């Protein structure tokens, strides 16, 4: 399963490192990373492959939520299918 991880919040050092560390610890493969500052807010979208992972999406969501709370940013992990459905035809 492809999962999109988004981070939204105030920019600070170590956000991508912190998220990437969770991925590495649980064998989640990072496919792409994009980031953009919009209206002064840091936005990051990371597409990952959960197939090799040793945890399920529910657990990943919980881990990311805790990490987001520690960093003061909002982190979400969603099945990529919802974005493909909305933005791609065919």
């Amino acid at each position, binding site marked *: 399963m492809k999962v999109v991880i988004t981070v939204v919040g105030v920019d600070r050092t170590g956000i991508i490192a912190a998220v990437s560390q969770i991925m590495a610890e649980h064998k989640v493969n990072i496919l792409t990373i994009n980031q953009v500052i919009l209206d002064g807010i840091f936005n*990051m979208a990371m597409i990952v492959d959960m197939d090799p992972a040793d945890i399920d999406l529910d657990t990943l969501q919980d881990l990311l939520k805790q990490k987001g709370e520690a960093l003061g940013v909002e982190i979400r*992990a*969603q099945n990529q299918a*919802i*974005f493909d459905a*909305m933005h791609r035809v065919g």
Partner: protein
Amino acid sequence: MLTIHDVLETNQMIQKNNLDVRTITMGISLLDCCASDGKTLCNNIYDKITRYGEHLVETGEAISREYGVPIINKRVSVTPISLVAGASDMKSYVDIARTLDKAAKTIGINFIGGFSALVERGMSKGDRILIDSIAESLAVTDLVCSSVAVGSTKAGINMDAVAEMGRVFKDLAERTKEQDALGCAKLVVFSNAVEDNPFMAGAFHGVTNGDSCISVGVSGPGVVKVALENVKGEPFDVVAETIKKTAFKITRVGQLVAMEASRRLDMPFGIIDLSLAPTPAVGDSVASILEEMGLESCGACGTTAALALLNDAVKKGGLMASSRVGGLSGAFIPVSEDKGMLEAVGRGSLSLEKLEAMTCVCSVGLDMIAIPGDTPASTISAIIADEAAIGMINNKTTAVRVIPVPGKGVGDNVEFGGLLGHCPIINVNKYKSDEFIARGGRIPAPMRSLTN
């Protein structure tokens, strides 16, 4: 390739603009539950609903978590009970309503619809008993919703049933007066009822459906409103295109959720209902969309045209996004559930008459409108007749869900709570319709040519 802007747009719709899947509704046929003994019938009904619906709520919650999109309601619709119970020896169907309520609570759903009768041409024994049981049934249950179809383009309007339903609304209001006649929010009277509507209070699982199916109702008035904020002052061609594109995106989410729910529950996919269903939340209002088009307040001259454009564009945009569209698809205008609508009523810009005009071009009808408690039953019947006539002549679904609040009059406010919102009491024409309603009989089906 998905871009970060696509991802952020989707999440902004969900998190800031109230995009949600309003309901996953499981339709269940109860035809195979029929029994002559009332107790056996109730047991059969309870067993089938709890067996089929056992995993509905947890499945909805799991999908919601995985895709990050709220799924507000999980519901069940069943075969119109008048058909299921007609062969039984029961003299009242209140026990069936209690059974539906109990089954709904066991599986943890929000509402169960189908305490219904289809009487466009006349009433069978089961229809008669069901209609006589509605007021008590809705007063003693929490989650049961009821609907009665009194007319259609092909059948005309059953004015005996129309007269009866005015009395049922009054009786139900009186029985639930401690809660400001909340019972009436669970009852709707239809013209051209549809058999695959996933929305309450009018959902029922029509007999032309299979044994069961999963249907989904999408929503997202806030998303459309925000999209229109970006095309201020542009011509209507641009407005229509913008709504279409937005409706497409909203519907794709609904389609995804429906297919996933259908797969996980191992049940056929029914339909997607493309409705823009408002909630009392700020930024989730259909009235605000109309106002965004350039009207000072919903109800101003131009409101009907604005709603016509909106309703049509939502359908055009949503159609391609889904493999099967049905239900009531369009824009709902439930007054108490739409912050913009009730503000418009409060400031005197939106009247019952204007709402009636709007129902000619919106998806359904006069919905969640609080009226004075002293409104006679015959006047409520006459409101139903007017609305049924609009549906009959225009070949569309119309409905009436009005709430005559005992002890309250124009200027008072009622609070229903939750998704049902609150509402100022709206003025109803004081002149009598009692002799008109007392005639009974049928208004014949209209001709379909020379349509001027």
